[in-house]
């Protein structure tokens, strides 16, 4: 244990942490957007839309995330499609976790009792109003716990960006490992704790949202 060493590491770890949070937030937004979009599409009455959404979910749940990331970042340029490291990461994570989230959205929507659809129809709400004003707000409460887990998985996955030289927390810890051979256990323990704190923040936000959204209802 060597607190003076920790102070030496702090600036680099802090910079890495900021990048990690950035990547996680951006990918999280893309993933949630895709999850809601394709989750709803999988319940569409049009076969084609359902089919496209289904293929998307199957494909991106089936790939290995790190391989997808490599493919987007290193292989696509060969087809003339180039991404910066951060956009490659956001794209790969967004597509991958969007596919997993899609299942959560779909099953939460299906879990809303049928009577809610019927009541909304009896009041003559349009299909979009039924979905966005009646069904989805109820589904969101059910989604929160599994979405919380999904976002933690996504946060953990952001560590993979170090492979494509994006200077996140993991990347910086690798740099420090090169300089402080003797203190690797300490170093990685600190990094693990930092990730744990970030995960806890996600859980905290999810809990607060859950409490707010279910206030008075249940």
């Amino acid at each position, binding site marked *: 244990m060597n607190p003076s060493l920790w102070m030496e590491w702090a600036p680099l770890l802090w910079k890495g942490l900021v990048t990690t949070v950035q990547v996680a937030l951006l990918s999280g937004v893309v993933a949630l957007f895709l999850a809601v979009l394709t989750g709803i599409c999988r319940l569409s009455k049009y076969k084609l839309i359902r089919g496209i959404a289904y293929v998307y979910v199957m494909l991106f749940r089936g790939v290995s995330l790190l391989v997808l990331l490599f493919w987007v970042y290193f292989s696509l340029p060969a087809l003339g499609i180039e991404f910066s490291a951060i956009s490659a990461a956001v794209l790969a994570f967004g597509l991958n976790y969007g596919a997993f989230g899609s299942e959560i959205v779909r099953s939460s929507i299906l879990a809303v009792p049928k009577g809610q659809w019927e009541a909304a129809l009896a009041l003559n709400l349009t299909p979009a109003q039924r979905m966005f004003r009646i069904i989805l707000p109820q589904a969101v409460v059910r989604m929160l716990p599994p979405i919380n887990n999904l976002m933690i998985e996504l946060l*953990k996955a952001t560590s993979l960006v170090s492979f494509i030289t994006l200077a996140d927390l993991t990347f910086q810890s690798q740099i420090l490992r090169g300089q402080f051979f003797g203190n690797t256990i300490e170093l990685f323990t600190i990094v693990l704790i930092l990730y744990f704190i970030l995960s806890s923040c996600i859980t905290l936000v999810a809990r607060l949202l859950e409490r707010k959204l279910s206030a008075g209802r249940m």
Partner: protein
Amino acid sequence: MELDWEYAFSILPTLLKGLKTALYATVVGFVIACVAGLVLALLVRVRVKVVKWVTNAFIEFVRSTPLLIQLFFLYFGLNKYFQLSAFTVGAVALGIHYSTYLAEVYRSGIDNVEKGQWEASRALNFSKGRTWTSIILPQAIPPILPIMGNYLIVVFKETPLLAGITVLEMLTRSKNILSRDWKPFEPYTMVGLIFLVLSLTMAIVFELMERRMNRRFTK
């Protein structure tokens, strides 16, 4: 640009060697995860509060932190004292990481066994161990087999992370091929396709298994 099939086939043998390593790591990691996961699931049920608390904290911590850093911690940190091969450390890390997930799966399986089964075992004066091994677990595990199967796929898809500690799986081999030939499209595309085909195949197998299970359990 299109996939250069001839080139793709020429690198296939090397990639398949990597696949073999990946599959080994998957199997070893998954077995560790299954065993350690069961131990964790049982520890959570121990009456002693400290054991329960420590186990839960361990599960929570491992689940909330990246496998990659755990790999680094074990390989670059702890392994200084053990000097195990990168492959061994990688498989162990995979196993420990996913044991925390499987602990949850076991827990749900155990919770789904009816309370009456415990009471009946008590009434028949079975010992604690006997109750677990011949009454509870035989009922708890079959329904969760498909979910466990899904984790086998997840572990398999996580093996590329072992590239981070120089294990010669598919991704490491692709990188090596890439630095030799500098053709970036084929290696990663091939690896991606191999993962896709294998994990989708496994997913279909487990899906069929699940359907068959459901039929058996609803009878």
